[in-house]
């Protein structure tokens, strides 16, 4: 009667093992990895038969370690796009791993280093520690971490887009658009970039409108879209009529709530303007893809140094998209003035990231 007697214990175990095993294949939570070869047919590839020029002509290999999914419409999507752009621009061979948890990161760095990658990028401040640790074991491999200020001789560098600038501009936009003079902020996890944008959006709002009220909710997660939406409702109930959303893939749910309730909202961390043109005035872009491109460019040109780089408004990494039609001219002017104040150094931005 028992199935174990019929098939034998081994078969049942095998079935379970298959079930579990298929998960890792299916890019489950262990961090799915993918390799994308350098585009073939590029001019710089050596022609067949005469490839005796040695290692230097082989395409450089770049690996990217991501904390989330490349479909998140924000942080990870940007990095993925940056990696693809760098591949097309510089003909490097690229690979990436998604959903790498903090605790697994070290093994991913080590694995890529052993596989002969020239540059391994951890996308997010949380990869700082594992990168500096593993880098000591592989002095010939370059390591880079984004969204953090760190460097370690001879091979660890870091780069970040100017999060405070972006937060400041988003706050200015929101405050100038608000009718009641009360704006809200919904953030994902409490991590330095999210907190930096929160603090600086308040700063930006008060810079352009000193009496502006500011309320905020931190979700503690990026996955829970229902919570994101409900949290937005609660801010709207408190009287906020412009919401700044900074919660990666949950941002879309926050903007949806704004649209439903007929108020304005803007997402920072991605491009959302066409999602709900009547709700979203503009996107304040924080182009993390530029970080990846800059890093790869440095690698290819042999300029990679163990140093920290920050790119912002000046480099075009922080910028505004085109405004949607309905936005009043005085809002645009006000924001333009805020940008000028920033560039003139009239504002002291709050920096919490090391």
């Amino acid at each position, binding site marked *: *009667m*028992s*199935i174990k007697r019929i098939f034998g214990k081994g078969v049942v175990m095998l079935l379970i093992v298959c079930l579990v095993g*298929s998960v890792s294949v299916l890019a489950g939570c262990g961090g799915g990895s993918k390799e994308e070869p350098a585009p073939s047919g590029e001019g710089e590839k050596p022609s067949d038969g005469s490839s005796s020029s040695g290692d230097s002509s082989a395409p450089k290999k770049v690996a990217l370690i991501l904390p989330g999914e490349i479909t998140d*419409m924000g942080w990870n999507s940007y990095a993925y796009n940056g990696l693809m752009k760098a591949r097309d621009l510089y003909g490097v061979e690229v690979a990436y791993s998604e959903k790498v948890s903090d605790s697994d990161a070290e093994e991913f760095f080590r694995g890529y280093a052993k596989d002969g990658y020239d540059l391994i990028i951890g996308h997010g401040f949380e990869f700082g520690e594992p990168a500096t640790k593993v880098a000591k074991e592989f002095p010939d491999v370059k390591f880079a971490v984004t969204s953090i200020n760190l460097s370690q001789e001879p091979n660890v560098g870091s780069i970040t887009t100017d999060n405070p600038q972006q937060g400041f501009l988003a706050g200015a936009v929101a405050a100038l658009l608000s009718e009641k003079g009360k704006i809200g902020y919904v953030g994902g996890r409490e991590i330095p970039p999210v907190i930096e944008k929160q603090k600086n959006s308040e700063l930006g709002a008060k810079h352009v409108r000193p009496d502006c009220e*500011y309320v905020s909710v931190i979700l503690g997660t990026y996955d*829970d*879209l229902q919570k994101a939406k409900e949290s937005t409702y609660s801010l709207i109930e408190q009287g906020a009529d412009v919401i700044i959303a900074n919660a990666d893939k949950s941002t879309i749910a926050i903007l949806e709530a704004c649209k439903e309730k007929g108020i304005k909202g803007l997402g920072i961390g991605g491009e959302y303007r066409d999602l709900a043109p009547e709700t979203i005035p503009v996107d304040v872009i924080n182009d993390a893809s530029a970080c990846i491109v800059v890093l790869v460019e440095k690698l290819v040109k042999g300029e990679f140094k163990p140093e920290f780089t920050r790119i912002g408004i000046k480099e075009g990494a922080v910028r505004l998209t085109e405004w949607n039609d309905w936005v009043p001219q005085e809002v645009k002017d006000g924001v333009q003035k805020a940008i000028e104040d920033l560039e003139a150094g009239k504002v002291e931005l709050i920096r919490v990231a090391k």
Partner: protein
Amino acid sequence: MGQELFAIIDGATNLLSAAVRMGAPLLLASAGLVFTARAGMSNLGTEGVMLMGAFSGVVGAYLTGSPWLGALLAICIGVIFELIVAFLVVTARANQVIVAMATNLLALGLTSSYGRVIFGVSTRPPRVPPYPLFKIPFLADIPVLGPVLFSHNALVYLAFFLVPVTHFILYRTSLGLKVRVVGEHPRAADSVGVNVYLVKYLCCLTRGAMAALAGSYLSLGALNMFTENMVAGRGYMAVSAVIFGKWTPVGSALGALLFGAGDALQMRLQAMGWGLPYQFVQALPYVITLVILTGLVGKAVQPAATGEAYSKE
């Protein structure tokens, strides 16, 4: 004074209707979970089944243009998924916790991969028609109660309707009696001619249908799209709601609504801007739950044969 009172009532109404919206998926799932729990089975795989439901609901709605066909597909997928689980834990007598973990991981992997296959790696998840909001005529106009109870989509009403139904089945029918006996003492049930395997299979399939429907509430009710890992721990919360409710339908429903209310309250406390650390505020619902569990509910005794595989020999 009058205005203040009005604001308080308004706030309470908003809080309670959010509690119902947040509690609804837990309520729906728990309607299936009480059966499996009473039949002595571990429910830890619920998260995965909900995720499958959330995903297949969107796929169904995407392909057909109707959320109801999406719901149907979700239920079918949930049932098929649970059929496999039931085969493993009931027939093959595999360890239930291990299978549950595998279920959750498999669902996460399947939905993520197939999501990319079907919808593509784009920065815009496809929007599908959601479950329409259905305000019950007249009742929805009652102050406070109207917005709280009668201005939701059909799944919320179904969730409430199922509470007395599951209660009735579990305590007033012979099938319910069989389920409870199987959970307490399967051999005794077997000796009086109850088909233990069949009862467990049926419970599993019910759980699959309800959990998948609960998942589709998230993707088609609260939102109108699927994103990876969107169930975000609600499967486990539904399991907790059932334990909180001492494995009874009414108790589970109260648990589900309490969890929903806790979350709704937590958000509002943050939004008030009192400057409380948000970690403290976020922990509050769970602190309340713990206090109620230890202080008011009393000792919880799970069905005696929980987690054990039954073999006829």
